[in-house]
C-alpha cells in the first residue's frame, strides 16, 4: 500500500453539513461583567448566615454531601454571630484576629508603596482576603505545618513572624534569610511552620499531603494545611494531592481560596460555572465545606472543624473559601483592563476587616476610637520595621549578597563544576562593566 492510499479520505465541510447533524460550537465561559459594564453578582446566592448546620466532627463524609453547595456563614449582615458554626470566641481572641488582619492590610499598603517607590521588584497584596489566612492561623495549632501559596502572608503575621524579616525578604537585602534568592513575598520559615512558597502553582498541595502522611507515619500529632487558588485547582497537582489525601486519609486541611480571579481569568475558566470548588471533594469521598471567606468566624470555625477531624485520624477536608480579590493580582497587574472598576465595591460579602470590627462593636467590645488607635499603633510598628529593614538595604542597594552565595546551597557540598563557575564569576565581577 502506498503512503497516499493509507491516508483516510478527508470529508469536506459541505459533506459534513449534508449529514443533517447539528454543528457543534465551543463554549468559552465569560464573566458576568467586563470593563464599562455594571458589576453583576446576581448569580451569587450568598444564603443566610447561620443557616448551614454544623455536623459532628466524626460525621461520615457520605452524610455531608450537601455542604459543598451551601455557604457557611456566621457573621450576619448586621454583624451578629449566628448559627451552629459560631465558634463563640472570647473578645480578646476576636480582637487578636482583628489586629492580625489589620496588620496584614497595613503591611500590604506599606510594601505596595515601597514597590511603587522602586525599592523592590514585585509585591502581592491580600486585600479583601485577610480573613482566609489569619483566621486559619488562629484555628490551627502553632506547630501545624502550613503549605501556603502566595497570598497567605496572614499566616506569618498571625504567628508573629518578625516584620523586619518579611521586609528583608521583600527587599532581597543582606538581612534576607533566603539570601536574595526568591522573588519578593515567596517567604519560607520552618520555625513558624511556613513552608517555602514555590511560585509554581499547586506544587505545594501534594507536598502538604506528603508532610501530613509523614506525620501520620511517625505517629506525630501535628497536622498540615495547604492553600491553593481557584485557578490553580485546574493543575494536575490538585488532583494528585486530593487523591493521595483521600486514599491515605492524610491529616491535612486543604484550602481553596476562591477569590474568583486568576490574574485576568475568572473562576469560570477554572470550572466554577457549573459547580463549586468545594464540590470536588465529593468525587474523592472526603468532606467539602464551602465557607464565606470574608467572614473570619466562619473561616475559623470551618478550619477548627477540619483540623479536629484530621487530628482524630478522620482524614482530610477540602474547604473552599469564597472571597473576592479586591485588588490586582500583583504590582504587575491592572485589573481595570478586564473587570469593572467598581466590581469590588459591589461584592456582596463585604470586607472581612469591617465585618469582624462591626461584630466586635455590636458586642460592645470595640469602637471607632479603639480601631483608629490600633491602626495608628500598627502603622507605627510597620514604619519602625521598615526603617530597620531598609537600614540593610533595598533591592540592589546596601551590602547585598556575596557572589559565592549564588553557587552555595545548590548541593550540600559544592561540586567541581560549580566551584569553577564560582571562581569565574568572582573574577568576572572584577572587570569593568
Amino acid at each position, binding site marked *: 500500500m502506498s503512503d497516499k492510499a493509507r491516508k483516510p479520505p478527508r470529508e469536506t465541510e459541505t459533506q459534513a453539513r449534508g449529514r443533517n447533524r447539528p454543528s457543534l460550537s465551543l463554549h468559552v465561559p465569560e464573566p458576568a461583567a467586563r470593563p464599562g459594564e455594571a458589576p453583576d453578582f446576581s448569580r451569587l446566592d450568598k444564603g443566610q448566615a447561620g443557616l448551614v448546620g454544623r455536623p459532628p466532627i466524626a460525621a461520615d463524609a457520605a452524610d455531608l454531601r450537601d455542604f459543598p453547595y451551601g455557604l457557611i456563614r456566621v457573621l450576619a449582615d448586621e454583624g451578629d454571630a449566628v448559627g451552629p458554626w459560631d465558634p463563640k470566641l472570647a473578645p480578646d481572641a476576636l480582637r487578636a484576629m482583628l489586629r492580625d488582619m489589620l496588620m496584614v492590610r497595613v503591611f500590604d499598603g506599606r510594601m505596595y508603596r515601597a514597590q511603587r517607590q522602586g525599592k523592590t521588584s514585585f509585591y502581592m497584596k491580600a486585600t479583601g482576603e485577610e480573613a482566609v489566612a489569619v483566621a486559619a492561623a488562629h484555628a490551627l495549632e502553632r506547630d501545624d*505545618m502550613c*503549605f501556603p501559596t502566595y497570598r497567605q502572608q496572614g499566616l506569618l503575621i498571625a504567628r508573629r513572624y518578625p516584620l523586619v524579616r518579611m521586609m528583608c525578604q521583600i527587599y532581597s537585602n543582606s538581612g534576607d*534569610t*533566603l*539570601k536574595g*534568592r*526568591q522573588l519578593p513575598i*515567596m517567604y*519560607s*520559615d*520552618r520555625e513558624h511552620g511556613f*513552608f*517555602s512558597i*514555590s511560585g*509554581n502553582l499547586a*506544587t505545594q*498541595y*501534594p*507536598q*502538604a*499531603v*506528603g*508532610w*501530613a*502522611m*509523614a*506525620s*501520620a*507515619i*511517625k505517629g506525630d500529632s501535628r497536622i*498540615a494545611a495547604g492553600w491553593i487558588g481557584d485557578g490553580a485547582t485546574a493543575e*494536575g*497537582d490538585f*488532583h*494528585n*494531592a486530593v*487523591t*493521595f489525601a483521600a*486514599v491515605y486519609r492524610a491529616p491535612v486541611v486543604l484550602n481553596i481560596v476562591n477569590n474568583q480571579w486568576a490574574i485576568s481569568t475568572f473562576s469560570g475558566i477554572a470550572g466554577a460555572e457549573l459547580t463549586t470548588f468545594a464540590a470536588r471533594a465529593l468525587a474523592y469521598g472526603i468532606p467539602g465545606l464551602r465557607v464565606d471567606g470574608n467572614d473570619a468566624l466562619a473561616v475559623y470555625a470551618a478550619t477548627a472543624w477540619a483540623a479536629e477531624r484530621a487530628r482524630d485520624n478522620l482524614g482530610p477536608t477540602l474547604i473552599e473559601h469564597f472571597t473576592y480579590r479586591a485588588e490586582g493580582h500583583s504590582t504587575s497587574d491592572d485589573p481595570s483592563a478586564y473587570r469593572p472598576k467598581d466590581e469590588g465595591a459591589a461584592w456582596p460579602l463585604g470586607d472581612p476587616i469591617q465585618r469582624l470590627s462591626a461584630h466586635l462593636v455590636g458586642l460592645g467590645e470595640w469602637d471607632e476610637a479603639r480601631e483608629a488607635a490600633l491602626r495608628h499603633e500598627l502603622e507605627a510598628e510597620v514604619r519602625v520595621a521598615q526603617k530597620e529593614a531598609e537600614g540593610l538595604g533595598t533591592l540592589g542597594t546596601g551590602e547585598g549578597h556575596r557572589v559565592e552565595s549564588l553557587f552555595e*546551597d*545548590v*548541593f*550540600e557540598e559544592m*561540586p*567541581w*563544576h560549580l566551584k569553577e563557575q564560582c571562581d569565574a564569576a568572582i573574577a568576572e565581577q572584577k572587570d569593568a562593566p
Partner: protein
Amino acid sequence: MPAMNMIEAINSAHDVMMEKDGNCVVLGEDVGYFGGVFRATAGLQKKYGTSRVFDTPIAEGGIIGVAVGMAAYGLRPIAEIQFADYIYPGFDQICSEAARMRYRTAGEWTMPLVIRSPYGGGIFGGQTHSQSPEALFAHIAGVTTIIPSNPYDAKGLLISAIESEDPVLFFEPKRIYNGPFDGYYERPVTPWAKHPASEVPKGHFRVPIGKAAIARKGSEITILAYGTMVHVALATAEAKGVDAEVIDLRTIVPVDIEAIETSVKKTGRCLILHEATRTAGFGAELAALVQERCFYHLEAPVSRVTGYDTPYPHALEWVYFPGPRRLGRALDAALKD
C-alpha cells in the same frame, strides 16, 4: 559474600537502610504487597510494615509531590517510578521543587529524597518502556543523577543516594538487572553470578557519588560510558582487539572530571557511548568537557555513539540500539589515523 544480581543488590540496599534508619520509607506503584514489577522491593512491606512500604495511586506527579512533602517533614523517602518513561508527570516536582528546595530556602529545608527508576532499552519494551531520559535531569541544577552498571555499585550507590541530603535520580538499566548484557543480542546472557561485581557485601557499604570507575585499563582510546553501555564497550573492545580504557561514569552529575581528563590525556582519543537519543544527549556535554580540557592531547575528533533521534522502536530495537556494530565502526574511525 553472597552473589547478587542487580535486583537483589538494590533490594538489599533498601533493606539495609530501612533497618538502619526509621525515617526511610518506600512508595511507588506496585511496590508494596507485590514488591514491584521488577521485584526490587520484594519482601520489604512484610518486614517493615505498610506504613513504611506502600503502594501508591498511578500518579507520578503525586508520588514525587508527596515524597517532597515527606522529605520536608524529615523522612527519607525512596520513591519508585515504575519505568523512567513514566517520570514526566513528576518532572515539575523534581525540577521546580525537589531540586531547588535547599537553594530557595537557603538550606532551611533539604530534600533527602531518592527517585529510583528502571530505565533504558534492550527488553523489547517499545517507546514507553525503554527510554533513557538522563540528560533531562543532568540539565537541572540541584539534582544528582546516578546510573549504576553492576550489582556491587548498584547497592553501594543506592545506599549513598539514600544517605544523601540532596535529591537523587537513580536510574537502573533494566536490561542488566539479571546479567551484564553486552549488546550481542543473539547470544545468551551470562548471569551476574559469573561476574566479579556480583560479590556484594550483605551489610552496609557505600560507593561514593561523583566517582567514576575504570572498568578496563587501556592505552589506545578512552570510552566514556555508563549503565548497560559499559558492558557493550568492554565486549566490543575485546572483540575488536582494541586496547580501550573504559570509564564507567556511574554518576553523571556531578561527573568525575578528573577520571575523564586523566584518561583522555593518556590515550589521546575519546569516544562517548550512550543509549539515549543523540541530540543534546549527555554525550554532548561530555564531548564539550573533553575538548575544553583535553584539546591539545587529542589525536582524533571526540566521537559519540548513541541511540538515534527517534522514539524508541519496537520491531527495529536492534537497529536502534547502539551495540557492537555501531561502536565497532566508530572505534575504527576514531583509531584510523
